[in-house]
């Protein structure tokens, strides 16, 4: 059924094909065929392109893992004639054994988890209360207070660090010779109990809950307090889970503030431990990259597990929040 361009009218709908002036003189079949070929080629190119970029993106992870299993000679190219190998010639599990012995993983881990849990609980409580007040209760100055809070979002956190440092110092929490673990924890937890962005996020979520539910709860004799915990919090659970995970990730990654306020290395968090640990050979002065990479693998794996289990919440939370921690 080869038909020329001149009488293609009427074919368009049946063949489900779009023709344009450029294609004048061609038959429907050749156009179809050409389109199919272009489609296959462009699909292949797209996949090749995207897979290549994906490989580039995961390359650092791959390199981290294989380097953590190499001997120092292989990493520096000494045993391979200056050539880098893409898979360890001798798999050195002993790197991990060494790191577990040398790197005080458990101390940093405990510090990080304690700080993460308490700062998350505090943040969730203040966020829930504030979001409830802003979304459901009426009071004088509600819009003003909310506007002031939103404006503080523009201020870079780095600006406050300096003054917060003076503040916690005036509380006597960072005396370099007498700081206790509890004071160090307080420094790392209390200033981060409020997140204006999470309040904003949860308020939007609370506002979507229909007012009829509130009135129904009132008729049933529920107080505001009961209504908040029995109705609103369960309904907003996904947002709260997102907030908790992002907060946890933030603590896991925080570096500068703990570095500033912890006067004892044993009080610091996992990132500080990782950066501060010098896996340097005392005799030769060469950094033992194998040990170092084994330590980075140990720090990265928990985050990956978190991501595997809570992918949905993390990606949705990030999509809306757009901030780390």
């Amino acid at each position, binding site marked *: 059924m080869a038909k020329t361009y001149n009488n293609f009218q009427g074919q368009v709908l049946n063949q489900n094909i*779009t023709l*344009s002036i450029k294609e004048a003189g061609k038959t429907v079949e050749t156009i179809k065929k050409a389109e199919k070929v272009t489609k296959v080629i462009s699909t292949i190119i797209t996949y090749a392109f995207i897979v290549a970029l*994906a490989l580039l*993106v*995961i390359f*650092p992870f791959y*390199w*981290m893992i294989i380097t953590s299993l190499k001997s120092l000679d292989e990493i*520096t190219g000494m045993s391979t004639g200056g*050539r*880098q190998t893409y898979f360890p010639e001798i798999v050195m599990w002993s790197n991990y054994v060494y790191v577990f012995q040398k790197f005080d993983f458990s101390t940093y881990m405990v510090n990080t988890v304690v700080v993460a849990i308490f700062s998350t609980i505090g943040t969730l*409580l*203040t966020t829930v209360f*504030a979001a409830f*007040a802003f979304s459901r*209760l*009426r*009071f004088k100055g*509600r819009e003003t*207070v909310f506007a002031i*809070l939103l404006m503080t979002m523009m*201020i*870079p956190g*780095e*600006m*406050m*660090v*300096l*003054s917060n*440092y003076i503040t916690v110092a005036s509380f006597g929490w960072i005396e370099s010779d007498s700081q206790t673990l509890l004071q160090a924890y307080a420094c790392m937890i209390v*200033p981060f*109990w*409020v997140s*204006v962005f999470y*309040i904003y996020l949860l308020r939007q979520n609370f506002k979507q809950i229909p007012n009829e539910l509130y*009135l129904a709860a*009132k008729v*049933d*004799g529920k107080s*505001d307090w009961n209504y908040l915990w029995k109705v609103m919090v369960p309904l907003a659970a996904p947002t709260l889970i997102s907030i908790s995970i992002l907060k946890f990730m933030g603590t*896991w*990654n925080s*570096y*500068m503030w703990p570095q*500033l306020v912890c006067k004892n290395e044993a009080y610091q968090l996992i*990132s500080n431990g*990782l*950066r501060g640990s010098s896996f340097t050979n005392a005799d030769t002065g060469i950094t033992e*990259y194998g040990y170092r*990479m084994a330590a*980075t693998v140990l*720090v*990265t794996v928990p*985050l990956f597990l*978190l991501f595997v289990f809570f992918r949905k919440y*993390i*990606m949705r939370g*990030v*999509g809306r929040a*757009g901030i780390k921690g």
Partner: protein
Amino acid sequence: MLLEKIKNLLNSKKSAPNGQSEAAVSLFDTGIPDIPQGYDQEKDVVVRLVGKKPTKSYRVSGIDDVASKNNWKAWLYLAPVVILVSIFLLYPLINTIYIAFAKEYSYIKGYGTGLTLDNFGVVLGLKEYVNASGQRATETNFVNFAIPNTVVIAFVTVPLSIFLALIIAVALNSIKWFQKFLQTVFFLPYVTNGIAIGMVFAVIFDKQGIINNLFHTNIAWIQNAEHWTAMVPLCIYIVWNSIPFKILILLSGLQGVDKQYYQAAQIDSASKGKVLLRITVPLLSPQILYLMITGFIGAFKEYNSIISIFGAPSTAGSGGASTEKNLLTVVYYVYDILEHDSQTMIQYAAAGAVLLFAAILIFTLIQSKVSKSRVYY
């Protein structure tokens, strides 16, 4: 009177819960007016009967919560936030600005002797200051390194990462198989410990590392690197780290685009590049604008990547004899003072922080102006 009492008795009988005897009701009866339970739309109140004793068996509640314009309970709910925000957000803001302008600020006393612009002058290298060992010195790090580094990082990484994120997002959006899987792969850099991966980049760009090996070069990228050479691994790392978020935002933008635009372009047999430039980019302009502004603000605050790759604000490392801190950024400058010279130089850190704040404020204002006046479609 009698008639009313009978009426009340009947009413209370109606509202008496099941199982409660008539006698019990009449025993406590003191006359309950006929108030229907539930939400009264006219008066905008919720009415309910509470309590076991019929004497107290009605109370109008809910007025406070629903209709009142001034609910003191709300302030109870807000108290933790108001207190914490005042101590850790508003007070620091004012205090930092004050310290930046304070004359002869004393860290121990917590105040200065007046107001001045000298601190900014010192930070910008226009004025001499007395350093910790009592000598007069000129601050050169901020002008020579912190500002240029920050500007270079911002103007290299932000456009580059947005461009890459855009083509990856468009490609991801056009494929059918493994879309979710690949999307997850591209998100991976987001869920990492910044310090850990920075150290991996240091290994990759090591002098004996894989990059020099692949390209048969022998360049010092990290240790003892030239100032601008060290910017290469740094910018690559920042781009790598910032792409996932941008892809996520652009992809969700793309999924909201009406397919009709593309069908119309197909009828006009527009080329793929043209479709990308003339349809996709303009339709995504709100997202791109948002990413540009947040990207610039983020790049102005860059310091974590330098710590993670180099371990110190200098290519010579922390153990180097050189005091030239050639990898400082604006924020790193502030932190560096806090970590090492908080007693004597905190006012200069404050001045640096105020300059950063001003830059970010200008960018935010531009954003709100642009997003209001220019919508691209």
